[in-house]
């Protein structure tokens, strides 16, 4: 079975631009979560979507938005990019909405560089 797939793998953008990152979950997984991982740190939670509805939002500005489509794939959008948005953006899918009975399966991430 295919794992979680993310596209693109690498991206270079200029400050002030907009970016869209895409994620396809493992077949049958209905929950998608997004995490930001700055170099040298652990991942930080951005969003969770389950059955196309937002289930949770981390401490990120409104420049960050996301959505989940009927096929459970997801997009993360970031507007007005700042240098500090440079990071590895990880998508994770799980069977259910709760972590205690359904561990996260991560994609390999999108490496975003803002210049």
């Amino acid at each position: 079975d295919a794992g979680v797939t993310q596209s693109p793998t690498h991206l270079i953008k200029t400050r002030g631009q907009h970016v869209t990152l895409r994620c396809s979950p493992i077949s049958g997984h209905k929950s998608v979560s997004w995490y930001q991982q700055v170099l040298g740190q652990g991942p930080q939670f951005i969003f969770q979507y389950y059955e196309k509805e937002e289930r949770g939002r981390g401490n990120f500005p409104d420049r960050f938005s996301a959505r989940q489509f009927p096929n459970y794939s997801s997009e993360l959008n970031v507007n007005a990019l700042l240098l500090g948005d440079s990071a590895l953006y990880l998508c994770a899918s799980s069977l259910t909405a709760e972590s205690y009975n359904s561990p996260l399966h991560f994609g390999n991430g999108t490496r975003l560089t803002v210049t």
Partner: protein
Amino acid sequence: SQQGEEDPQALSIQEGENATMNCSYKTSINNLQWYRQNSGRGLVHLILIRSNEREKHSGRLRVTLDTSKKSSSLLITASRAADTASYFCATDAESGAGNMLTFGGGTRLMVKP
């Protein structure tokens, strides 16, 4: 902000030795998980321990949880060069915030052949 802190931040051992990593967290939890990350790649789930469990084993992995001290440890026995990676603990809020995991800063493990 990071909920927990891993200790040590970096660990270098010889193949065959045991590796122990510690994690401390701040708030009450439902469960604690350990993940592994090879350089620049996604995280892989290793093991989950619930708040009412004290110890759990999976292959060469042994995890302990002390909720009174808000700490956990991950022991990798008989380490191999392929175990070289970063290891993260992750906790969820006791209030059950879905898949909102809070990760620590990670321990970078290097196993020398």
